[in-house]
C-alpha cells in the first residue's frame, strides 16, 4: 500500500450525474474527477447534495442519469458489495455483536481470504491506528475516538479503491476532533488512498483537503484547492460560506483587461474583473474582504474608510475588532488584528481608519437586496 503517483490519474469519475428524490433534485448533472491518492472534500450546507453524491459513489443509490466510474471501470449500476469502496459513517456503524477484530476483519472474511492472512492484516491495521491489544473488546466498550479508529481500520483493511468519509468528526468533542483530523490525514497520506470526505464544516475542509468541491442546491459551485476556494471564490455563495468575510460597498472606476479598479473611499483596490462581467464603470459593487486582510491604519496612512469600534474580542494570538462602518457596510465589519496591542490601542468607541491589502479582495455584483448608497466614494 505505498504511495501511488498522483497527477491526472483519475480514481473516481462522475459524468453528468443526476439524482432526484420525488420532486426534489438532490444532484443536478454533476461532473467530478477525483485524482488518485487525492483527498477531495465535498463541502456545503445540509441539503446541498454532498451526502447523496457519497451514497452514489458507494453504490447505496443509483443515479437517475449520468455515469460513475471507479478506477476506470463503469460502476453506475454495480451493487455496493462489488465496488471496493470503504466507507466510514458519522456514528461509525460498528457491528455491535462483533469484537473489534471481527469488525475489522469482516470485509476480508467476505472476500474469502484465508484465516491466517486475515489475522495478519487485522493486526497490521490495528497497529496502524494504534489500537493493538483491544482485539477482543466489543464496540460499546470503546471510547468515541477508539470506535472511530476501528471504523477507519475496517474501511482501510480491504484496501479500497476509494475511501468515503461521511462527516466523520462531527460526533467527537473539540479536542479529540483536532487530533483525529491530523491522524486521519497522516494515515491517508501514508497509504495514498483516494478519499472523498463529506463535511459541512468549512474550517475542517480547508485544513484537510487537497481539493474542495463546494456544493449548493445539487450543483458544484466551485472546485479548487483550499487556497483557491478561500482567496478566489467564484461567487457570493462560496465567498460567504467558506471562512469569515466582510462585505463592503465600493464603486467601479474602470475595468481594464482582467483587472478592475474599485474606489473605496480615497483608496483604490484592484480586483479580478472576471467576477464583474457586464458591470459598467460607476456602478456600486460588493467588495468581499477577509478579516485578516483589513487593518487599522496609523495616522497619516492611506485610509479607505472610517469606523467606530463596537467591540473587541481577545483571541490570544490576535484581537477581533467589530467595527461599525456606516459609510461602506450595512453589517458590522470584522478586523483581525495580529498581536495583543489591539486591546489597549483601540478600545470600544474609538474612531479608526481602515485600510486593506490591495490585491487580496474580490468583488461581486451588488446583491439586489443590498441597495445601500456608497458614502462619499
Amino acid at each position, binding site marked *: 500500500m505505498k504511495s501511488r503517483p498522483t497527477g491526472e490519474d483519475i480514481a473516481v469519475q462522475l459524468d453528468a450525474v443526476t439524482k432526484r428524490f420525488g420532486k426534489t433534485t438532490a444532484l443536478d448533472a454533476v461532473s467530478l474527477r477525483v485524482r488518485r491518492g487525492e483527498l477531495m472534500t465535498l463541502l456545503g450546507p445540509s441539503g446541498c447534495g454532498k451526502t447523496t453524491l457519497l451514497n452514489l459513489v*458507494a453504490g447505496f443509490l443509483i443515479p437517475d442519469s449520468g455515469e460513475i466510474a471507479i478506477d476506470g471501470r463503469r460502476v453506475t449500476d454495480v451493487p455496493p*458489495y462489488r465496488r471496493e469502496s470503504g466507507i466510514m459513517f458519522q456514528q461509525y456503524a460498528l457491528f455491535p455483536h462483533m469484537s473489534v477484530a471481527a469488525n475489522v476483519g*469482516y470485509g476480508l472474511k467476505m472476500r474469502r481470504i484465508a484465516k491466517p492472512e486475515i489475522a495478519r492484516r487485522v493486526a497490521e491495521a490495528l497497529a496502524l491506528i494504534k489500537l493493538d491489544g483491544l482485539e477482543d473488546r466489543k464496540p460499546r466498550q470503546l471510547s468515541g475516538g477508539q470506535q472511530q479508529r476501528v471504523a477507519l481500520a475496517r474501511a482501510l483493511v480491504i484496501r479500497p479503491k476509494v475511501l468515503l468519509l461521511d462527516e466523520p468528526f462531527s460526533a467527537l468533542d473539540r479536542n479529540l476532533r483536532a487530533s483525529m483530523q491530523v491522524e486521519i490525514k497522516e494515515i491517508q497520506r501514508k497509504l495514498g488512498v483516494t478519499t472523498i470526505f463529506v463535511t459541512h464544516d468549512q474550517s475542517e475542509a480547508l485544513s484537510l483537503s487537497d481539493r474542495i468541491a463546494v456544493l449548493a442546491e445539487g450543483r458544484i459551485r466551485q472546485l479548487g484547492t483550499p487556497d483557491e476556494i478561500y482567496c478566489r471564490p467564484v461567487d457570493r455563495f462560496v465567498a460567504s460560506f467558506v471562512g469569515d468575510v466582510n462585505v463592503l460597498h465600493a464603486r467601479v472606476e474602470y475595468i481594464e483587461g482582467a483587472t478592475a479598479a474599485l474606489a473605496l473611499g480615497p483608496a483604490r483596490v484592484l480586483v479580478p474583473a472576471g467576477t464583474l462581467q457586464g458591470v459598467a464603470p460607476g456602478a456600486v459593487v460588493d467588495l468581499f474582504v477577509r478579516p485578516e486582510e483589513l487593518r487599522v491604519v496609523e495616522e497619516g496612512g492611506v485610509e479607505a474608510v472610517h469606523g467606530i469600534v463596537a467591540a473587541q474580542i481577545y483571541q490570544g494570538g490576535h484581537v477581533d475588532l467589530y467595527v461599525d462602518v456606516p459609510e461602506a457596510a450595512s453589517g458590522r465589519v470584522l478586523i483581525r488584528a495580529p498581536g495583543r496591542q489591539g486591546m489597549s490601542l483601540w478600545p470600544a468607541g474609538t474612531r479608526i481608519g481602515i485600510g486593506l491589502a490591495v490585491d487580496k479582495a474580490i468583488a461581486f455584483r451588488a446583491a439586489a437586496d443590498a441597495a445601500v448608497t456608497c458614502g462619499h466614494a
Partner: protein
Amino acid sequence: MPPLLSRRLLRLLGGVTVTAILGFLLLPALVVTLAAFNGKAILSFPPETWSWRWFAKAIEYQDFQAGFRNGLIVTGWASSIALVVGAAFALALERYDFRFKRALETVLLSPLVVPHFTVGLGFLILAAQLGWARGYAVIVACHVVLVLPFVLRSVYISLRNLDPRLELAAASLGAPPLRVLITVTLPLLLPGLVSGWLFAAILSFNEFTASLFVTAQSTQTLPVALYNYVREYADPSMAAISVMYIVVTATLLTFANVFLGLAKVLNVEHPR
C-alpha cells in the same frame, strides 16, 4: 409533631398498598399451588392433609397426556409460522412504503381487538363450509392469527432499533444481501425474534376460548382437556397441572433471561 406523623403514616400506607397489590397478583397462583398438594380428593382451601399424589395422577391421565402432546404440536407450528410471517410483514412495514400500508397494519393487528371467541367461531364455520376435518391445520391456522400481532410488534420494534447503516457498512465491505442478512441483520434481530416466538408460544399453549371451537376430541389441547375434565371431576389434579404450567413458563422465562437478558427479550432495553 403532626407533619412527621402524617408522613410516616403515608409511607406506611404506601407500603401496605404495594404489598396488597403484589399479593393480589400472586393470590390465585398461591391458592392453586396449595390446593394441588391436598391429600383429599376435593378442591378445597386450605388443605388439611398434604400429598404429591395429584401430580402423579395428572401426569398419568391419558387426556392430559394427549392434550399436552397436541398442545406442543400446535404451539410449535403456530408460533414458528407466526414468527416467519410476522417477521416478513414487520420487515415490509418498516422498510418499504406502499399503498394501503396503514390498512395492512390495521388488519395485521386486528386480532388484538377481535374476541378469541369470534376467531374460533369463524374458523369453525369456515372449516365446516369448506368440508375440512377439524385437524391440526385448522387449529394451527387459528393460533397463527391470534399470536401474529405479538410477533409482529416484537420484531417491528427490534427492526426500528436496528441502524440501517450497519447493513450499508456490511454491503460496502463486500457482503452480498444474503450474507448481510445472515451476518448482521439476523444476529441483531435475534432478541426480538426470540421474544416474539416465546410470547407466541406461551399465548398459544395457554389459548382456550378459540381452541374450544376448533379442536376435536382427538386434537384437543391441554386447556381444552382441562376444561373437559373439570366439567366431570373436581379433584386437585387440576391444580397440580396448573402448578406445572407455572413452573414450565417460569423456567422458559428464566432461560430467556439468562441467555438473552430478559430486558432485551421484553424489548424494554435498547438492544444496541
